[in-house]
């Protein structure tokens, strides 16, 4: 008869203790895995989505909220800012690049972001198929959205599903981006004007035209500088974009579109890179002190956030270590406690020729089977738990949380097995050294 039969039969005979040990181990492993996954996800998102953004400018409010909503797209924006005020800072001499963002709508939970092609360049996002938008209500969909080329859809107000649908305008998908592993994969990008117009605001092009006609030459010159700056960046698409706006006007005229774009244009945020590290410090200071805008430093805010999360993460880590320790102790007490009643059985095995080594293996294997079953169950629970959390916890889902197998998984696996083995060591040694003659003479 093989030893596995003896081991399984023994575990079955102590099923309550066995089950409890398996579940305690499983919960500990599950918690560890969730912590590792969550930390890894946050780190990946912070690194990938926040890379190369020095300053974010938006409406006053929580700086962290501004960063989370504008860079990571997992919170609601702090509000809107007047475009003309934003534009001053976009053209500041210490600002290297500035990408405006206009948020406010979504399609099936995927945020519709009004922006410029600079946004795509920032994340090195290339098109898998199609082209960039050339006129309002043309959209480029991220690779992880459920949109295909040529699809049409209507935006819904708000940044999560279920808002009022803007029936008056319909977007058409003219491009799909290649997967970038960044937030762009889960966004729907369109022109600024699309978002502004749909909310009854004047498009940026309209706005400038009005001002041009109004004879504000300084502003007109600035506008030229702005265009020159874009030329410097060789954004050919930008020309298309401007052409697109003209098309948009024609289209509006052709169709007798009566949507009133009367409000002054407002955007949600500007993502900036600066020309020098000192500007990273000075520009936010000036903006925060002297304007109605708010400037936040993503690196600083994310450091604060990860520090706060780190505290929580450490608490959960401590909890998981505690759970695994309890599980290991439970395995130890289960084996050691049952050993008292099993010494006679083990003495019989030794008498009929089972070696000390074999007895050691049998007892150690009993403990290790509990640990292994608990670890596997814990991993499955952890994977399922993380996927469920990604479904029901909006920020996780919105940030594209998914399971990534990391070296930490192996570390958890090895650590738990090692802890389990240590727990089985003492009972297994004691069992292998059973006093056979004494047990057989005296044990009932």
């Amino acid at each position, binding site marked *: *008869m093989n030893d596995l039969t003896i081991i399984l039969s023994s575990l079955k005979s102590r099923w309550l203790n066995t089950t409890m040990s398996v579940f305690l181990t499983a919960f500990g492993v599950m918690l560890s895995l969730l912590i590792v996954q969550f930390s890894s996800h946050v780190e990946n998102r912070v690194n990938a989505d926040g890379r190369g953004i020095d300053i974010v400018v938006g409406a006053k409010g929580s700086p962290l909220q501004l960063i989370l909503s504008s860079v990571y797209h997992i919170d609601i924006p702090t509000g809107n800012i007047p475009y003309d005020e934003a534009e001053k800072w976009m053209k500041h001499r210490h600002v290297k690049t500035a990408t405006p963002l206009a948020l406010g709508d979504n399609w099936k939970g995927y945020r519709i972001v009004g922006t410029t092609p600079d946004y795509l360049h920032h994340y090195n996002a290339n098109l898998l198929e199609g082209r960039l938008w050339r006129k309002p209500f043309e959209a480029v969909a991220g690779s992880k959205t459920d949109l295909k080329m040529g699809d049409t859809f209507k935006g819904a107000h708000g940044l999560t599903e279920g808002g009022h649908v803007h029936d008056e305008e319909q977007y058409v998908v003219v491009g799909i981006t290649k997967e970038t592993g960044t937030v762009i994969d889960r966004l729907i990008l369109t022109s600024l004007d699309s978002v502004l117009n749909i909310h009854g605001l004047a498009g940026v092009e309209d706005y400038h035209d009005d001002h041009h006609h109004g004879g504000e030459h300084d502003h007109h010159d600035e506008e030229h500088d702005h265009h020159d700056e874009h030329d410097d960046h060789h954004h050919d698409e930008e020309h298309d974009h401007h052409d697109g706006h003209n098309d948009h006007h024609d289209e509006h005229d052709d169709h007798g579109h009566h949507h009133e774009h009367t409000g002054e244009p407002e955007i949600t945020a500007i993502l900036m890179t600066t020309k020098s590290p000192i500007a990273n410090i000075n520009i936010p200071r000036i903006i925060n002190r002297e304007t109605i805008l708010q400037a936040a430093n993503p690196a600083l805010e994310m450091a604060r956030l990860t520090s706060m999360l780190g505290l929580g993460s450490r608490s959960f880590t401590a909890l998981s270590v505690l759970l695994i320790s309890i599980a290991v102790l439970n395995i130890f007490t289960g084996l050691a406690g049952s050993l008292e009643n099993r010494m006679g059985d083990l003495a019989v095995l030794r008498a009929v020729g089972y*070696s000390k080594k074999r007895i050691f293996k049998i007892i150690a294997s009993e403990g290790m089977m509990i640990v292994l079953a608990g670890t596997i169950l814990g991993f499955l629970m952890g994977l399922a738990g993380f996927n469920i959390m990604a479904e029901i916890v909006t920020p996780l889902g919105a940030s594209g949380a998914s399971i990534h197998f990391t070296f930490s998984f192996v570390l958890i696996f090895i650590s738990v097995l090692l802890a389990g083995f240590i727990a089985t060591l003492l009972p297994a040694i004691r069992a292998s050294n059973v006093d056979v*003659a004494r047990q057989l003479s005296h044990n009932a």
Partner: protein
Amino acid sequence: MKAMPDIFAVNNLKKSYDGKDILNVPSFNVTGHTLLLGPSGCGKTTLMNIMAGLLPSSSGEITFEGTNYSTFTDTQLDDLRAKNFGFVFQRMHMIGHLNVMQNIALTQTKYDPDRIKQLMSDLGLSGKEEQKASDLSVGEMQRVAIARAVANNPKVIFADEPTSALDDKNTESVMDLIFTQAKKTNATVIAATHDSRIKKRFDNVLEMSS
């Protein structure tokens, strides 16, 4: 023709605990079924345990089929027991969470279910294969213990107080079963007991006193 060695040869065997001799056997040889007879505390179980390789002696020499195994390592003794010895323990020592088949199979170095089933049939245990040992009656346990002792066709069957708590009828029945199985496998029975009722069944009787 070379003479066959004695099954066991014991020479000046001593066992001491805390400097006190609890066993002192000058010499004797085992050539057939042997009974170690004596009152409680005379050292008969100790002697049997030393002969079975379950307990080391403090001094002296003991051979099995001409091989001195007094100085064997644990592993060598394990191997000796597994291949040559069977045991009927005083309190049966069934492993409660294993079924009858599994309890008997414990002694088989190579699993042979046909042999086990044959033994079970011989001992009136047919139909009890899957029953947990802990659910058996004392009588059934006794028969399973005998089946387990002979399942690996041992050369020697050690029986420690096999009849101590049995009435005359059951004593005869148990000894019949042990000797019948021993005969089938050509095994030598060595029993330690204070029960002189079974004396007549043995070729040699070593009477021991406290």
